[in-house]
């Protein structure tokens, strides 16, 4: 991601060359061969650079091993299989000299490998002087042929081997312990040391690896040409260095990918082949190489400073939304008219709790609610006067529900779904789903579980407000208003499954009274949908409520067969207008501090009751906004309504109007015989 721009420029460059220069299919073969040999050097150099060093001696090591393998085979008649093993060993031995000097003696990598570049070349020349007369014997081994001209499943051997090594190197560098240690050493030696990493050993291993890869490349080179002299690999260091810089590997250590380095190598080889095809003087190649090297070095430097801002720009992409008609709640004497019905609800836990998004009441009448500090409070029934912290979930406890065994389920923002047992211990129910295929973004985590409810079969339906942002950044989701959310089902066996994808900020989840469907509220699109989970329409999604005047939050069943729902925010003409202008919203996030953003009016306390068919029956407000400035959830239990709000410092308990009282137990999962092991009993 971070090197996307330099790399794409490099690709454009190579495509341009391919188009402009008559490169034929034959050139493809030789380009691949070149890439296979030098690409191994590029992998080695990348590893060393990531470890915070540099290795200029790779070309010379290649030359030495190319000669050595031939000498071993032709002069001493060493079995070919042994030679194949020995080549990287010889290379590694030379690498060990570099490693020893740099890691143990702590000499400077650049000057050291510049010296060994000359020294190893000297060794190669000496080998040539001593043995050249005896190297003319033709090769007899099939393995030479296989390494040079053979194929593996249709791919030329060197290329196939290169790809295998590339994949292994990539995985090792990014995923393995060794790669991590190497990266940390390259990025910050002091931190690495303090984290208990053996700096010397890591640096040493990088040079060994670089040497071994150069040795193997030497074997491939001598197999390819069937001969070798001390000039093999001369000047490779600059070509490979250019390729690696072109691939976005940082010279200051800690950052780089072997795959990108290989792409860089590919581009450089194309340039080289182009100059060969055009029969240009090799001065042209050197010049082009230098220009490319300088250009990409500067680009890497400058791009580095803008990279983050660019990434930040990409991370937020507000969507355009068409909004329906807005109901004016200020018009007097309508169903929606603002009133003060909630204002005088007596408080619970005033001053103790901070931001209970939802609450739940057990059989004993004890009340449980989350707290944005990551705690679950318990207030003793029936008067809820005394409270204490009952459990600690960490994270941001949001929606609550009772499962079939009578344990408390909590959707915890940032942590997934947790189950709280009767003794106050917590256990994880689920925090991940299968990663969706072909998605660049890793969506395997349940990042922002918001509300949940239990279906008659015991499976848990969880809304994930956003699979991109975290619970602390909910404002971004308001601004972006894109289908980032999901509805996830956690099966009774613990497996998870996404049932609705690409849903705009799903929030409240509620199992319908008949147990046949799940109601889901979309905060961003101010609507409620119904997902059928059994019956003839199973799997279908249909609207229940649309164009609400506010942004819906949690939903719960009412005892008379209807549903309660709260609004977390109200629509205003300005917020509706903003929905149509994504660029304006993006600019707002750039130029204004978060508390000055135009967002839907968040301070609101409005709850409503609606029927299965989507008819709104009743709307309650706290028009003063003094006691309950925000109601995010409303729970009915035995004749009382409990008001919770994620920014309030209290809960509220409101006596239910007689007309609203029904006979249904709102706690119970519809159509089940839910276990009633009360929390309070188990605790005593």
């Amino acid at each position: 991601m971070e090197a996307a721009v330099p790399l794409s420029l490099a690709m454009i460059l190579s495509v341009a060359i391919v188009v402009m220069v008559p490169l034929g299919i034959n050139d493809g073969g030789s380009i691949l061969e070149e890439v296979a040999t030098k690409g191994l050097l590029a992998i080695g150099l990348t590893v060393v650079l990531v470890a915070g060093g540099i290795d200029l001696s790779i070309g010379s090591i290649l030359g030495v091993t190319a000669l050595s393998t031939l000498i071993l085979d032709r002069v001493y008649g060493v079995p070919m299989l042994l030679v194949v093993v020995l080549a990287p060993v010889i290379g590694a031995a030379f690498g060990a000299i570099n490693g020893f000097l740099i890691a143990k003696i702590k000499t400077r990598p650049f000057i050291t490998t510049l010296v060994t570049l000359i020294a190893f070349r000297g060794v190669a020349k000496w080998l040539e002087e001593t043995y050249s007369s005896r190297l003319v014997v033709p090769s007899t081994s099939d393995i030479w042929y296989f390494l040079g001209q053979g194929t593996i499943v249709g791919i030329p051997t060197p290329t196939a081997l290169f790809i295998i090594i590339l994949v292994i190197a990539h995985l090792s560098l990014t995923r393995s312990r060794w790669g991590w240690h190497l990266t940390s050493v390259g990025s910050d030696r002091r931190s690495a040391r303090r984290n208990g990493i053996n700096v010397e050993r890591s640096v040493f291993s990088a040079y060994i690896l670089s040497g071994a890869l150069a040795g193997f490349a030497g074997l491939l080179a001598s197999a390819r040409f069937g001969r070798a002299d001390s000039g093999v690999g001369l000047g490779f260091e600059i070509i490979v260095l250019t390729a690696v810089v072109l691939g976005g590997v940082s010279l200051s250590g800690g950052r780089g990918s072997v795959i990108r380095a290989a792409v860089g190598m590919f581009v450089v080889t194309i340039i080289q082949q182009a100059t060969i095809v055009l029969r240009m003087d090799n001065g042209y190649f050197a010049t082009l190489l230098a220009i490319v090297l300088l250009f990409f070095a500067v680009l890497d430097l400058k791009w580095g400073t803008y990279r983050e801002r660019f990434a930040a720009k990409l991370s937020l992409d507000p969507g355009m939304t068409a909004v329906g008609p807005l109901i004016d709640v200020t018009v007097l004497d309508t169903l929606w008219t603002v009133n003060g019905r909630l204002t005088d609800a007596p408080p619970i836990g005033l001053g103790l709790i901070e931001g209970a998004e939802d609450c739940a009441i057990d059989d004993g009448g004890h009340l449980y609610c989350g707290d944005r500090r990551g705690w679950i409070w318990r207030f003793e029934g029936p008067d809820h006067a005394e409270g204490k912290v009952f459990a600690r979930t960490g994270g941001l406890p949001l929606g609550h529900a009772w499962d079939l065994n009578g344990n408390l389920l909590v959707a915890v923002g940032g942590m997934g779904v947790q189950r709280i047992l009767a003794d106050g211990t917590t256990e994880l129910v689920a925090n991940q789903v299968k990663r969706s295929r072909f998605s660049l973004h890793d969506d395997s985590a349940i990042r922002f579980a918001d509300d949940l409810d239990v279906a008659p079969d015991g499976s848990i339906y969880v809304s994930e407000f956003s699979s991109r942002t975290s619970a602390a950044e909910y404002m971004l989701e308001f601004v972006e208003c894109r289908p980032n959310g999901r509805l996830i089902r956690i099966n009774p066996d613990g497996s998870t499954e996404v049932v609705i994808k690409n849903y705009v900020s799903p929030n409240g989840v509620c199992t319908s009274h008949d147990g046949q469907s799940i109601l889901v509220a979309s905060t961003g699109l101010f609507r409620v949908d119904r997902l059928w989970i059994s019956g003839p329409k199973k799997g279908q999604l249909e609207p229940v409520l649309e164009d609400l005047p506010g942004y819906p939050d949690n939903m719960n069943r009412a005892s008379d067969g209807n549903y309660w729902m709260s609004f977390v925010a109200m629509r205003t003409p300005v917020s509706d207008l903003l929905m149509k202008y994504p660029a304006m919203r993006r600019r707002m996030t750039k130029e204004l501090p978060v508390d000055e953003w135009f967002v839907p009016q968040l301070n609101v306390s409005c709850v409503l009751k609606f029927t299965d068919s989507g008819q709104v029956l009743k709307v309650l407000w706290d028009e003063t906004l003094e006691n309950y400035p925000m109601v995010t959830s409303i729970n009915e239990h035995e004749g009382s309504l409990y008001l919770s709000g994620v920014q309030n410092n209290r809960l509220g308990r409101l006596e239910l109007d007689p007309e609203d009282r029904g006979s249904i137990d709102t706690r119970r999962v519809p159509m089940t015989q839910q276990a009633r092991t009360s929390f309070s009993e188990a605790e005593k």
Partner: protein
Amino acid sequence: MTALLERRLTRTTVRSRLEALDQGTLVIGLIVAMLILGGLTTQGFLTTGNLSVVLRFSAAIGVVAIAQAFVVLGRGVDLSVGAMALVAGQVTLELMSRGWSELAAVGAALGVALILGLVNGFLVAVVGVPALLATLGTGQLLLGGIKVGLLQSNLYSVAPDAFLRRLGMGSVLGIPTAVFCLLVVIALSWFCWSYTSFGRLIRAIGDNPDTAWQMGGPMRRVQIGSYLIAALLSAFAGFLIMAREGSVTTTGAAFSPLLFAALTAVVIGGVSLSGGRGSLLGVAAGTIFISLIVNLLTLNSLSPALQDLANALTLVVAIVLDAWLHPRDEETAKSGDL
């Protein structure tokens, strides 16, 4: 308790004594030792003729080493010096072969050096490209660019009557001209290092760039200036080489033997690659030291391969010594400090 402190303060180890010693003095000691050893073992080594050859040989290397030292002292490095020296000769001779006057051709070569120095300085001081990478690239670019854009022949010879030829042959006040030139360069550089603000500031930047920057030193100008001087001196060294050899080839690698010799002389002479430390005496002594080694190896008729090896081994010893005398602290070592 105080005894502990006393012990720490008066502690003398081999290392601390060597550290206190100017590395130039150390190398001069080594040179004397080598002269004695060489005189005992090698026929024809300790003769005036041979030693004057050694001095002549070291003139060009010395000038490039000083060029390099200007940059290294300010915590940089210039890998384009070798290329510059080669290109200076090429440009001059090519232009002369096109009928330019000798003076104009030399001027053009120096013009090329001026541009190279400015570009190097700009990339390093203003853009912030690591010095290694920037100068590697510009050196390569210069070699390739001049070859592609200007040169028409593969080998150039210096006309016997050219003034440049006299640089290599004649003598001033009884000293070979080339050596005389080296002495002049040393004198001027010494003046620059000790008596000018510029010289003080280069050393300051090498010692601690952050301090120099916060102090309000004209960092960019000074850094660009040091690369400029390096390029001009390298071009001058190119003329000296051309005069000595009498010809210039057009094949050259980025890591040329000249660059290598210059870096070696600088490191052996005690100019620390971490900047801020070093003396001209050291650089001069380092230059003579490596020239003597090459001379000894040649006199003992070692093959080029073994000469390379012996050369490299000497340098390994030098950098190991440098690392030992000026160790880097694990707690403060910066990564990516190549």
